[in-house]
């Protein structure tokens, strides 16, 4: 649905986006992650045909950015970082303006449909200035959808919302995916990206990594199981190290962190070996790496500064305790 090739934007000699190549498939939620100033908003603006690329190309549903912009604007809906609503006008008036500008044939029906869907119908004639932030964000979503776009570009749609409203908006976005819309989601909220996105792209002016969160997790951290024992002895450690499929073993108190290539197949063999040498197993779990860890590792590897404590910091803190 969306394809970019070496998409680049330069503002007055400053590179905002560099050589972005990606393909967003029809019907998927694609996450765009990156630190402030990474070029996420610039990318969204280019894809919404609001600004033209300096070089490279972007094609949306067969229409080329910079050449067929009017056609692109008709099939794209956008939620900008700020809701950008007319606060003196009512919710209904706000949507009517956009429905008319998008050339919607039955304005009243579409406006009612989305006001009801987002539970704003009862407040339809109230000035938007009296709405809570969450309601404004829902109205901004309704505005982006009023012309039934195939592609949705969402720039920080849950930014600044309370957890309850965040959940409502998030669930609504997940529902939109079910309707077959293609969604590009820019977010700083990594939990949100994890929950919603099929694939993510980490951007830091240029693309750093693109894959599913699971694939990135494996690529960066491998797969480890954590075995918690009553006690760890040298014999147990030797036995585990002797297993040919074990890639690495680390001990943390009574826990063994064992890197495996195929835990589903290898775990039963590992457990048998541990029991044979008299290990009393309390728990066996797979190590979980949050998307936040993946993201920070990627940014760090790219020369950024991690805000997570390093392994040595953690060890120091632990010994101090």
């Amino acid at each position, binding site marked *: 649905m969306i394809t970019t090739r070496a998409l680049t934007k330069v503002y007055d000699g400053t590179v905002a986006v560099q050589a972005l190549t990606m393909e967003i498939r029809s019907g998927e939620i694609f996450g765009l992650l990156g630190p402030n100033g990474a070029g996420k908003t610039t990318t969204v603006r280019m894809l919404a045909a609001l600004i033209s690329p300096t070089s490279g190309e972007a094609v949306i549903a067969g229409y080329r950015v910079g050449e067929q912009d009017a056609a692109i604007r008709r099939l794209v809906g956008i939620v900008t970082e700020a809701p*950008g609503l*007319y606060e003196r006008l009512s919710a209904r008036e706000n949507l009517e*303006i956009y429905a008319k*500008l998008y*050339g919607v044939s039955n304005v009243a029906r579409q406006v009612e449909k989305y006001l009801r869907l987002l539970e704003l119908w009862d407040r339809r004639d109230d000035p938007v200035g009296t709405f809570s932030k969450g309601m404004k964000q829902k109205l901004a979503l309704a505005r982006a959808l009023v012309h039934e776009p195939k592609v949705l570009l969402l720039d920080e749609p849950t930014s600044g919302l309370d957890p309850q409203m965040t959940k409502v908006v998030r669930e609504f976005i997940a529902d939109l995916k079910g309707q077959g819309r293609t969604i590009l989601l820019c977010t700083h909220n990594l939990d949100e990206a994890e929950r919603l996105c099929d694939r993510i792209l980490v951007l830091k002016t240029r693309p750093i990594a693109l894959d599913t969160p699971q694939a990135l997790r494996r690529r960066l951290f491998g797969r480890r199981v954590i075995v918690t024992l009553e006690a760890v002895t040298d014999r147990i450690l030797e036995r585990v190290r002797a297993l040919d499929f074990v890639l690495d073993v680390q001990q943390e108190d009574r826990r063994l962190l064992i890197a495996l290539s195929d835990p589903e197949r290898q775990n039963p063999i590992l457990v048998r070996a541990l029991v044979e040498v008299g290990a009393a197993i309390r728990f066996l779990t797979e190590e979980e790496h949050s998307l936040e860890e993946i993201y920070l590792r990627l940014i760090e590897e790219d020369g950024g500064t991690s805000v997570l404590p390093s392994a040595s910091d953690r060890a120091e803190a632990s010994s101090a305790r």
Partner: protein
Amino acid sequence: MSPVLVILQKEWADLRRHRLLMLSMMAPAVVFLLLPFALVILVPLLDPSGWNDRNVQRMAELLGRAEPDLRRVDPLLVFHIYIFRQFTLMFLLIPILGALSIATYSIVGEKQNRTLEPLLATPIRTTELLWGKSLAAALPATLLTWITFGLYVLLMRALSPAEVLPHVVNPVGLSLIFLIGPLVAILSLGLGVIVSSRAKDPRTAQQIGVLLILPIMALFIMQMRGFFLLRARWVWLGAAVLLALDVIVLKIGARLFQRETILTRWT
């Protein structure tokens, strides 16, 4: 519906609910409408001889030269004509201030509220958006001027001697209101667009735009001091100059009013 009309509708719906802006537009109109009547009624009462000062006499002399029938008219009537003519010139401030207020609020306000980006993401052309906003500013400002002038004429008929009206509602007065008025409104909104592209809040934009008032004030003071009397041919010449300025200013405004420029360069 044409996108220009949608924008026009939106702007007016917003304007109707912006009481402060409405008030700031109406206030000068009310002042310019009532002040000359207050002057012609109160000044001779408060200062029975002083009103006929050197400036009034110099103006009466100029008026008499331009319109010989006025030489035979009572000096108090000449004073009335003089005041009402002066304030016809002041009426030009109504379209300037009105168009400037609406244009700067409409553009800088959208910048402040961050409503421009979603608007520019729709299929509307920037020229259509600029037209919608320009009409939304120029039409009410011009209509307000004409309505105020209409009331001015009605009040003059009701409160002043019959000889006064034909000397005020003459080719010069009508050209000022119906020709120069819309042209200064366009100039004002064009300047409003240019200034708004840089200003961060409507007040700053208006303060810069208010420079347009200076030439009108200069004309007002020079005529009040009896240095010259505005003639029809000067008004038409002024209209030609204004028309040229309008074209230049609108072209600059249209050049600034591009999607990418608005989103990336307007600070």
